[in-house]
């Protein structure tokens, strides 16, 4: 049974549109020329729950990151000699300081909502047929987000950034030909910092948006995944029978949640503005990575630089392979105890390594 309230503006061309005639005319004119209503699709009622809105919230946070990033790029100097001073200058200005702090906190919120979205997708087995490609594009977005967070850490060009870039260079050596782009020798014309900046503001966001477009088209093509509870037959029946609402209703909820994310980032920027470390010195190591990379720190203490390539590689390969390994029809997490146990184990290991990385004695790794 599909019931779409008729009073929605974006449901179908020619649908009744509430509000003033001007809005209606504008919408009709735009829709006639741009086919905007093609973006609309019926959304099951459960998709309006917070757990199923996390992807949209992550997208909202990403768009806010782009907006604040564009602002910051007007004042940031990516030349190694001036980069640190330009960040200090941004941090000394009233608006610059707030926008930089908002950008920083948005990146943290983005990382959290993205991880939670991935976790929800895993728990509800939304990667199963026919949504394997949706999952794989999501995993690609997860990897690209990691690249954005990493490159963003380097741009402030303080001691922490220097050490992150030195790890980058060492990993490039480990990867051989594959790591050539990451090495300072790749371009004689531009410093590695400048190329990391280009990656952060153009290469990675363009790739991210490209993969995101495919991800969103696949979500539209296959629809929002069903609630997983019950037997496989019950899930199929519920998916077929569940009441559906207009896409715009879902979109408005996402917009409200995005405003909440903006409010949270502003509040955190006000309470705890982000700062900067001292100008970096090459060849020394006296910082630890940001919290989202901290799980790698103990591994590096124990086994050297190799785990920095191997551990994320194994995680990434495992996530990509998941839909081809877990091919059963069951979606209910209570009926997929082995997979859920594996996920719990991975989360516990991540938590343990992160906490251990936080409390453990600092160790110099690079150049050892």
């Amino acid at each position: 049974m599909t019931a779409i309230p008729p009073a929605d503006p974006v449901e179908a061309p020619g649908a009744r549109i509430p509000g003033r005639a001007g809005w209606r005319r504008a919408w009709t004119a735009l829709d006639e020329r741009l086919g905007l209503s093609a973006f609309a699709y019926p959304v099951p009622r459960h998709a309006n729950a917070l757990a199923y809105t996390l992807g949209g919230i992550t997208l909202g946070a990403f768009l806010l990151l782009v907006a604040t990033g564009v602002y910051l790029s007007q004042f940031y100097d990516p030349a190694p000699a001036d980069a640190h001073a330009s960040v200090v200058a941004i941090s000394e200005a009233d608006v610059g300081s707030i926008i930089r702090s908002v950008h920083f906190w948005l990146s943290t919120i983005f990382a959290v909502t993205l991880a939670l979205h991935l976790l929800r997708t895993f728990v509800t087995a939304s990667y199963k047929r026919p949504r394997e490609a949706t999952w794989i594009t999501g995993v690609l977005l997860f990897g690209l987000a990691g690249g954005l967070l990493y490159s963003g850490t380097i741009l402030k060009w303080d001691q922490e950034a220097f050490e992150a870039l030195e790890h980058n260079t060492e990993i490039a050596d480990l990867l051989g030909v594959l790591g050539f782009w990451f090495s300072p020798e790749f371009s004689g014309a531009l410093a590695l910092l400048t190329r990391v900046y280009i990656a952060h503001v153009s290469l990675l966001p363009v790739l991210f948006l490209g993969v995101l477009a495919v991800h969103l088209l696949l979500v539209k093509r296959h629809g929002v995944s069903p609630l997983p509870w019950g037997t496989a037959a019950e899930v199929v029946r519920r998916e077929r029978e569940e009441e559906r609402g207009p896409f715009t209703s879902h979109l408005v909820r996402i917009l409200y949640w995005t405003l909440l994310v903006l409010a949270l980032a502003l509040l955190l920027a006000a309470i705890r503005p982000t700062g900067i470390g001292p100008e970096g010195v090459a060849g020394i190591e006296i910082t630890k990575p940001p919290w989202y990379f901290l799980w790698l720190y103990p591994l590096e203490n124990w086994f050297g630089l190799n785990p920095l390539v191997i551990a994320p590689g194994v995680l990434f390969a495992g996530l990509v392979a998941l839909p081809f390994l877990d091919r059963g029809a069951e979606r209910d997490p209570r009926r997929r105890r082995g997979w859920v146990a594996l996920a719990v184990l991975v989360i516990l290991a991540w938590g343990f390594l992160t906490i251990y990385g936080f409390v453990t004695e600092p160790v110099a790794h690079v150049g050892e």
Partner: protein
Amino acid sequence: MRRILWILAGLVLLLPSPAVGTGGDEEGELGAQPARALALQALSILEQGVSHELAMEKLDLALASPDQDDVDVGALRRARAALAGERPERAEELLRRVFPEDDEHLIGVTLRPHRGTPELIAGIIAAVIAALALLGLMRRRGAERPAEPRSGSGATAA
């Protein structure tokens, strides 16, 4: 939807000129890092044998820093003098005393902007946006409630 557009338009109007995005050419107090962070860098530079001149530069900055909390300034001065006298081992020894063994030899973000009027305004704007967004979400939920006759019909909530 229209309310969101109004909120976004209001936010755009609230934004000041982009020209206030930097603090200008003058380096204020915020540009000066805490002496402790700079001294730790100097110690690490000496330990790794990177460059005595660089270590001296860092100690000069530490001695000139307005933030000399949690650091023995006398020891820093003596370490600076030892370096000037070409005695890096002595300087290293003195700097180690500044940072005892059980102390964490670690720095991160050491310089934070002072909290003032801009942060207060940001906090107020955050509260207003949060209130409007929560109100919008609650009204949305309220408006959709009558169309939920299927509760208890077998479909479990997420």
